[in-house]
């Protein structure tokens, strides 16, 4: 019985992974199209990212050793693993473990793995890119943490599934209405998490020739693309679950995710990139202030849980 159950979960997990990947790629494609239209051009087809991924996986590539390979796999597997704990619409594969902080830390493992892979290539460009990515992470994770903690205090639970159920019953129950400042901070942090401008210092092609991806080609770049796409799905999905009340079905979930991504794309289109220290200290100013203010408001409203 356990085996059957395991197999069912396994196939469901594959399904979720494929779905997230497809959605992420599609979002990427639509994002490119929207970007093209803002830039007054026609733009690539929606399906361009799929074709790119397929091509990358079928193209030859170079490896700098097994740490390089292991890093790339370690950069993509935990991202997929984190996905299994995310409530997608009404469905969660492993609802009993959907702890928010755990998901955040699993995502960090993906970064750790990716960092190991690209740094094993021994290119200083990727080292600079990685150092920038990590510095930026110190920036955006801190306000995001403040928001997570205020959601914890507000919902009195750490399960994403329960946070979603608590928001059931219409727009007025959504956390975005109850914690608008926190949402704002999250939206800014999301821009950093997705690495879109003005926070794309890590790849900055003109400065460090696409940074961490310098030595990646073929399937390695493909794995990076999968990681990015799944990460896009995961990160927007977390924000939807936290603030936009989850969704009754998959399509509405995707629609809500897309709204978030759309805002990100618009900001991406009109802003250039900041310097790295400016970006980091930016996160420590306005978004952190908003996040902490939100937490203080929640605490004042009586959210302290006396133990």
């Amino acid at each position: 019985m356990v085996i059957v159950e395991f197999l069912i979960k396994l196939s469901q997990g594959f399904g979720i992974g494929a779905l997230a990947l497809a959605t992420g790629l599609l979002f990427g494609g639509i994002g490119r199209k929207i970007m093209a239209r803002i830039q007054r051009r026609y733009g690539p087809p929606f399906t361009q990212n799929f074709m790119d991924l397929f091509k990358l996986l079928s193209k030859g590539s170079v490896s700098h050793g097994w740490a390089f390979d292991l890093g790339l796999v370690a950069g993509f597997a935990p991202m997929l693993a984190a996905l299994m704990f995310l409530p997608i619409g009404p469905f969660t594969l492993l609802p009993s473990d959907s702890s928010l902080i755990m998901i955040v830390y699993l995502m960090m493992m993906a970064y750790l793995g990716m960092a190991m892979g690209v740094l094993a290539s021994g290119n200083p460009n990727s080292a600079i890119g990685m150092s920038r990515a990590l510095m930026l992470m110190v920036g955006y994770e801190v306000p995001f943490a403040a928001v997570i903690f205020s959601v914890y205090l507000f919902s009195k639970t750490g399960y994403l599934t329960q946070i979603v159920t608590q928001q059931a019953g219409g727009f007025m129950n959504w956390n975005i209405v109850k914690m608008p400042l926190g949402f704002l901070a999250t939206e800014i942090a999301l821009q950093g998490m997705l690495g879109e401008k003005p926070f794309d210092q890590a790849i900055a092609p003109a400065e460090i020739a696409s940074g961490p991806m310098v030595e990646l080609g073929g399937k390695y770049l493909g794995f990076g693309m999968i990681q990015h796409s799944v990460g896009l799905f995961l990160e927007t999905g977390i924000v939807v679950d936290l603030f936009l009340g989850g969704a009754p079905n998959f399509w509405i979930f995707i629609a809500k995710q897309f709204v978030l991504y759309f805002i990100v794309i618009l900001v991406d289109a009109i802003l250039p990139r900041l310097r790295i220290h400016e970006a980091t200290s930016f996160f420590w100013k306005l978004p952190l202030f908003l996040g902490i203010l939100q937490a203080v408001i929640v605490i004042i409203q009586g959210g302290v849980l006396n133990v």
Partner: protein
Amino acid sequence: MNSLLALLIVPVIGSAAAAVLQRYRLVERLITFLTFSVTFLFLFEIKIGDILTWHLDFLGKNLEMGLQITPLSIFMLYMTIAFGIVLTFYNLSERSKMKGFLLLLTLAASNWIFMSTDLIGFFFAWELMGWSSILMIFGGKREEESRHGALYYAMMSIGGSYSMLIGIFLLSNLTGTFSIQSNVSYLTLILGLHPWWVLGIVSLFFVAFMVKSGIFPFHTWVPHTYGEAPDGFVPYLSSVMSKYGVYGFLIFLPLTSGAHVPSVLGLAWPNYVLLWFGSVTAVAGSVLAFMQDDVKKLFAYSSFSNLGFILAAIALFTPIGLTAGMFHAFNHLLFNGAIFITVIAVISKVGTTRMSEMGGIWQKMPLTFLTFFVGIAAAAGIPPFAGFGSKWMIFQAMISHGLIFATVLLFFASIASFLYLMRAFHAIFLGQLSHKYDNVKEVSAIGKITEVFLLGALIFFGILPGFVLDPINSIVNSFGLKPLPTSGYEYINGFFSSINMVSIFIVVIVTFIFGFALFAVVAKHKKVPQEDNYTAGQIPQDWNLTPEMYQFSYDFYEPMDKELAPFLKVKIDGFFKGFGESVEYIGEAIKEIFTGNVQIYTYLAVGGLVIFVIAGWVVW
């Protein structure tokens, strides 16, 4: 009852034997290892509640001394001795100048500390531990620097000791006894009447503990000492010896659990202050760590940053806070041990502690590399390795109190820990391999066994945390708090949610297998050497590009350093560096006045302490 005494006597005998046979390196090491193992065997003989008392007539006073086993002490004993076995086993193949007899003396002292029921025994064990470790640090590679480091450590230790001694005399004068238990209950009793009085006495003790754990603002000795201590001793110093302070805190923390004192956010304000000390330590440690270029110093800062986490958690003194703190103490022992053992393995192979001179070692030492990788993943708090659960619980413990600022600070420290770990990882193991390390080999078989053991332990205690949480629950229970519910070895129960680590482990494993399968199925790759690298089209040979010149690891986070520099300048660089320097200056001055030989100075200092003790004795 004999086994209690055996825990003290066996190490002392072993120490004597090791001291006699000091000239035969291998024999000495073997004795050290065997003594640790034998001591560990005696651990199975003892159980909670075992007690041994004796009376000592000294200068006309009758002192009751004793040894007792509590859940906390047995937990600590297991932790320290087990780690000691691993370390001494590893040291069998290590060539550093560590003196086994001093390590065994330290072990005896530490066993005494954990079991002592009276303040006199506690104090003497504390001093024994302190001085034997100080003598150990003299044996560092660089003589001048290690003497300097030891001196620094000694100065701070003596300061802590004096402070504790005054506290002990004050306390015994009030109660007329040296028993820890009766003193603590006396303090609890008068807390409502004379809170300031109690606070003053307890602070005297806390200073000693903070010094030993390297808690902000008494952390200044940590990098000096860790940086200069013999390689083989550093893991013990950072993983085990820093925990004595935690043990000390735990003796006095129950004081404020009563509702007699004003509170902040439902937390007694001394606890609140202690929590802030912890949080600031965590942040300061992390921030200072990512500016280091010396690997031992980096992990010294890392170590005291983690001590900050532990202190912040236990300062809450709630079931979850205490559990989280103790759990983190255990995890810290584990991952810090793994990190330091791999680091000293690398140091012994490459012959430098400067990270920017290393790089690319993963090709030469794959197992060490993997152990280190899992070690830093655990240190960064990544599931499913040991280290995740405790950090996760600490955050929940903090946030359930609404301590948003402290929690955000701790989270910042946690993310910053990611930075310095990654930097060390990159600078030591990844990047370009310099040609001067072409002959570097993987560690010996003994080293491999140790590493595999640590690797296994990091994963085992990561996915089955119940084996640690059970004894911790009994500790929590012994402090009169209601332990967290348990529901199997694979579960961690937090305040807001609980986690099944095995299921996470399975998910991660499955995704990894899937990842590798996908990796194998899609197009083939070509293995190229690291020299064949992107150089923006320029031919490397034309520019005489060597691997060292294509490796970026110095000043890795320079923009961040610049951003944080103003804070450091004001807060730490200014005041505490001055503080540290003045301490050094005094030490230098004394050294100059006396013979110039630090060892003799040390004996003089010990003599001074003894005179001080006797004087105190006579006065009170």
